Each structure stands twice: as C-alpha cells, then as structure tokens.
C-alpha cells in the first residue's frame, strides 16, 4: 500500500521496544556467559569434546531417522482412505505437545528394562535390549519428532494439485518423478533442519535416557557443571560451545527456511495418488500400523499405568499442579504478548527478534541468567518466574510465526477496506485485528502453555529439586524407581497440559466467525 503505510500508528513502536528487549535480554545472558567463560583458563577437556560430538551425532541420527520414517508413513496416510483416518492423524500429533518427561516414561514402559519389548524378548529367549545411551536418546527424539515429520510431508503430499495428478496420469508419466520427488526435495531440507535443531537443544531426553561419559549432550553437561561440579566457569564455557553450535545451524535454518510452522488443518481430502496394486496397499498398511503402534502404545502405557498410579500420588501433588499451571499461564501470556507486539510491527526487525531465541537454548540462556542472578538472590527463589520467562522466550519462534502469518493475512484481506474507512491505530486493533486473530491467538497460547508446562531443564537448573513442578516431581520419583507414582503424576501432567491447550484453543474458536 502506497499511503497509510503505518496503519497501526504508535502501536508499531511497541514492537520495536519488544524486539530490543528480547535482543537485550538474550545479549546480556550471552555476555554474562562469555565473560565468565573468558575468566577460566585452560581448554576444553576430552569429556567436553565428547559431549560436543555426541550432541551432533545424536541430533543427526535423530533427524535422519525421524524424517526417513516420516516419509513412507506420510505417503501412506496421504494416499489411503480408511475409517478413523482423521482421528489417527490427530492422535499422531499428540507427542508434539506431550511433556517430554511423560513421553520418556511411556518409552521406558515399552522399551525399558522390564518393558513390554524385553518381556516379549525374554519369552522368545532372545537377548535383551537397553534403552539407555545413544539408542535411547535417538529413540526418544524419533518418538517426539516423527509426528512433526509426518505433518510436514503430509502437507506436502496434500498440496499437490489434483489437476497435476490428472495430467501426469494422462501423459502416462511417472507420478513419483513428476510429482512426488520434486515435493520431497523441497520439503526435505527444511524438515531435516527443523528436527536437527530441536534435537540439538533437547535436554530432558538426554537427562533421562542418556548420561554417562558416552551419552552426555552439551545441554546435559551444562546442567551437571552447575549443579554437581559447582563450576560455573566450566558451565559458561560449555554454554558458549552450545551457543556457537546452535547459532551456526540456526542461521542455516533461518536462511534455508526451516519448517517451523505449526501447520494447522491436515484433513483436507487430497487427491488419490494411490496405486491399485495389492503389494503397495500392504506396505502402506504396514507403515501406518507401524507409526500408530510406535507412537500410540507408549501413550497408552502412560494412561494405563497412570490410572493405577493415581491411588499412589505423592504428597504435595496439589502444590505441584498449582506451580505448573502458574508457570504455564505466565509463559503463555508472556509469549503471546511478545509475539503479538512483534507481529503487529512486522518486517525484518520482528522476524529477526522472533527467531532469535532459536539460536540459543534454554540451558544457555538459563546459565546466563543464573550467572547474572548469582550473588544477588538465591536462584531457587527465582526458579518459577525464570522458568516461565525462559519458556516463553523459547516458545516465541513458534508462537510468533503462527501469529505473524495471520496478521499478514488479515492485512492482505481487509487492509484496503480498513484504510478506506479510516480504521487506524487502536480502533484497527480493537475492531479488526484482535477479533480476527482470536483463533490463532488461542491456538498459540495453548501451544505455549502446553510446551512450558512440561519444562524440566530450566526448573532443574534453578531449583535443584525444590519448588517442585509436575515434571520435576516425576523426575524425582523416576530417580527413586517409584514408577507407579511417577506414572500417576504423568497422567496428572498430561491432563493439565491437554486441559490448558484445549481451554485456550477452544476459547479462540468460540464465537470466532470465519
């Protein structure tokens, strides 16, 4: 639009302030880390290098496996129609908003020492498998990221226009080479990068399924340096290494447009790419059954053992629920407020500030904040507010993308009409943008709440065990091998997480006219 290029007037200035605040906060944390690291003489130890290698190795394997498995599953789901298909697709998305520690508990119930798989192997007189170490970390990450991969590729398949399929069929061309391969080639790099980036900064999986000298990630090493070695300088050095690693790949992802969208609406009736052969029908069914079993059996185990564990809930569960809900609500409110201010500003400044947290990680920024607070106040006392704030920041890139694309869409569809009516500034916000943003805002808030309610890294770093939230309580119980009680808490955590997501998402949908 040529004129009236500032339809929101002074409201846009707020976005600049928010962008500066985000950059300033992240910058100060990194500066604190760098200053502390610089004060420590000596180079990285062999253990530190091995943590770096393991971090990259597990992220690369996890990305390759998640994406490699997602492709045949998404293809099968895209070209087959069966009863319960849409319910299955919705359910397959569940691990994405599932608290990581709950997912780990479910995986242990299936693949753990006395899990379903090993019981079966024992009956068959086969050797036992261990879920701990590299295998477990990769397994955990594939479980958590396979749904993301399936979503991305399913969208890709559904985006192939039916006209082109018709054309390919008429020309008797290969559907694979003409249509499917070009789509895969465009989706693949972004999907790989997205999963790789997520696994690079994942903490909980490494904490619970990794560990030891052979399977420690940088994030885990940072936590151990702070909490067990009380060596803040070493923690800072590791944080700097993690930052360099994360930032390098975040820049690649930012330029290459990694697939970080939240992707709504996956149930469009796409075209039928289905070949009619019996063999392909069989392999497709097997892939779908594999994905359903791999993703849903651990969830079912959580629910089943959780129901039994409900009778065994530890004292203090009520306070833990309250703390978790408070953290989630605060994180969701902060994340959405920051994202909204940035989205209303728009442009490169907002995009950069909204993506900046991707270059860092919760433990890196957490270490910085820890160093800044150190000596001022007891970190344990700041644990809950810091957990809320850092989770809000880490969720910001996801929340921001969803909201900013909606703001752009609103301006594209209704900007001219609003301009012709002189709808500017606060009136434009109140009468046009906020009402039309209800759905994406509700969804984003629900996602931010669900993501932060499962946080274990920041709370563990700051509280060291006190100020128990639900994930922290689960971690303590699992460490004490009280698996039934842990399963009970897991079920409570899942219910809290899903209720928060549902309430926000539902709140956005009610009375929101399309």
């Amino acid at each position, binding site marked *: *639009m*040529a*004129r009236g290029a500032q339809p929101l007037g002074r409201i846009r200035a707020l976005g600049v302030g928010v962008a500066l605040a985000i950059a300033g906060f992240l910058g100060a944390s990194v500066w604190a880390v760098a200053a502390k690291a610089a004060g420590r003489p000596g180079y990285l130890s062999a253990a530190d290098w091995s943590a770096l290698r393991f971090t990259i190795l597990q992220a690369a394997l996890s990305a390759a496996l998640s994406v490699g498995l997602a492709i045949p599953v998404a293809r099968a789901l895209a070209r087959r129609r069966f009863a319960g298909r849409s319910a299955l697709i919705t359910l397959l998305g569940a691990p994405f908003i599932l608290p990581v520690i709950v997912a780990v508990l479910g995986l242990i119930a299936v693949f753990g020492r006395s899990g379903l798989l090993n019981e079966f192997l024992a009956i068959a007189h086969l050797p036992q498998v261990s879920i701990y170490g590299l295998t477990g970390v990769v397994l955990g990450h594939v479980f958590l990221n396979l749904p993301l991969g399936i979503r991305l590729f399913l969208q890709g398949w559904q985006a192939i226009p039916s006209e082109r399929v018709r054309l390919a069929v008429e020309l008797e061309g290969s559907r694979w080479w003409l249509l499917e391969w070009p789509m895969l080639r465009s989706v693949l790099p972004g999907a790989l990068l997205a999963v790789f980036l997520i696994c690079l900064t994942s903490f909980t999986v490494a904490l619970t399924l990794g560990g030891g000298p052979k399977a420690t990630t940088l994030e885990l090493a940072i936590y151990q340096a702070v909490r067990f070695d009380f060596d803040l300088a070493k923690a800072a050095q590791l944080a700097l290494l993690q930052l360099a690693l994360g930032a390098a790949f975040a820049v690649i992802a930012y330029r290459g447009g990694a697939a970080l969208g939240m992707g709504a609406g996956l149930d469009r009736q796409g075209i039928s790419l289905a070949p009619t052969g019996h063999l392909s029908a069989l392999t497709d069914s097997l892939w779908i059954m594999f994905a359903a079993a791999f993703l849903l059996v651990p969830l079912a185990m959580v629910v089943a053992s959780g129901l039994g564990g409900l009778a065994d809930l530890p004292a203090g569960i009520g306070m833990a629920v309250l703390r978790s809900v408070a953290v989630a609500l605060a994180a969701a409110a902060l994340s959405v407020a920051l994202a909204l201010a940035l989205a209303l500003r728009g442009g490169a400044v907002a995009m950069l500030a909204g993506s900046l947290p991707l270059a860092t990680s919760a433990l890196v920024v957490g270490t910085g904040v820890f160093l800044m607070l150190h000596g001022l106040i007891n970190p344990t006392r700041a644990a809950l507010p810091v957990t809320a704030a850092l989770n809000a920041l880490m969720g910001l890139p996801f929340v921001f993308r969803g909201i900013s694309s909606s703001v752009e869409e609103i301006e594209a569809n209704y900007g*001219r009409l609003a301009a012709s009516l002189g*709808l*500017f500034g606060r009136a434009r916000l109140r009468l046009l943008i906020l009402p*039309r943003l209800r759905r994406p805002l509700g969804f984003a808030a629900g996602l931010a709440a669900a993501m932060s309610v499962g946080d274990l890294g920041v709370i563990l770093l700051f509280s060291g065990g006190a100020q128990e939230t639900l994930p922290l309580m689960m971690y303590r119980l699992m460490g004490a091998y009280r698996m039934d009680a842990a399963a009970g808490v897991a079920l409570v955590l899942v219910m809290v997480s899903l209720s928060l997501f549902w309430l926000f998402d539902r709140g956005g949908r009610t009375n929101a006219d*399309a």
Partner: protein
Amino acid sequence: MLTLEKLRIEQGDFCLTADWSVPEGSITAIVGPSGGGKSTLLSVIGGYFSSTSGRILWKATEIGALPPGKRPVSTLFQDNNLFPHLTVAQNVGLALRPDLRLTGAEKVQVEAALAEVGLAGYGARKPGTLSGGQASRAALARVLLQSRPIILLDEPFSALGPALRREMLGLVAEKLGERTVLIVTHDPSDAREIAQRLVMVDAGVASAPVPITEAFERPSPALAGYLGQK
C-alpha cells in the same frame, strides 16, 4: 468534476496513462480486457496505489496525496467488503465512526440506511448469515452512509447471478446516481444499463470517456476488438 491529469501508473513492465475528466453526478463504466489495468486505475484513484506522475483533482482540489480514508472516495471491492466478525449494523456504522462508538442518533441513521437498501431488521446479523445479494446491499448501505461524493465500484457484483446483479445495478443507479460513480465491469450490457459514459482501458491507455450510446454505435477499434465486432 473528477479529473485525472496526465496520470501515469507504472508497475514493473506494466504502464497505464489517463488524461481526462468526468462530470459530477454521472456514472461511468470502465471496460477492457482483463489484466489491462481497470482495477489498478481504481486503486490509484482510491489511494491504495501510487501513480508515477500526474494529478488527481476533485473540484479543482488535488486529492492524490491524501490517504484512502481522507479522500472523498468510497470503494466497493470485488470481495471482502464487510468484516465477517462484526454485525451488519457495526459494518455499516463504521461509515460514521471508525471507532464504532456510535451515539443513539447515529444508530438510528444506521437503521435508516439498512432500511433504504431493503435490509431493515438485519442489523444484528453477521455477514456470514447473509446471502450474496444481501451482503452487497449491506456494503452499499455503508457507502450510502459514508456520503462521499466519488464512488468506485470494482466489479463488486460479479459473483452474483444475472438477475441479482441487474437488481444491484438498479439500486446503485437509484441511490447513488447523484454521486460520481466509476464502475469496472466486464459485461457491456451492464455498462449500457447503468452508465452514461464509457472508458475503454486497453494497451496501456485509459481512453477519455465517450457517451455510452455513441460508444456502442460507433465503437473505437479497441472497443470493437474487445466486443468481438469487425
């Protein structure tokens, strides 16, 4: 008089010039092949797109530098003429106050405008519950209430069936005939039905308006080509 003075619009390879005026209180149809720049011409007059050079004058006052909301111009677009999340009355009320803090008297005005287009009692409904024709009427009610002298219609009724479209054109002629209306259409019979003048947009030129009967009796080569006449 609405005057386009040596107006030149450029957008990449695309270029369009216009240098003419239309009198107040007249309806002018704008026809031409698609992609010729009919909608772009309207966006420039409405203030949504800048011209490269030239001036736009209304009653000898230059309006080309004003933002859309400050021009004496109301526009009906091809679609998205109503905000779906606001009621019909709120949509129409925006004509009076962009912040929608309407006084009692203003609410009465809104009701009257709705009654004038045959939508009495529809104020509390959301646009999603209206038919295509009713939605067009609601948008028209807002234009009526805005009381701006220049009206730009960018094929706003093109999604309606022939009978409904003719009905809406009749309503435009009846209610807005005293204002200065420019209407883009791809249907020559629409132009003949409603307009007194015709502007042909083709080959980078929006030619000067020609009285409608003359335009069709002795069509210019461009119009003849567009109409498919030899």
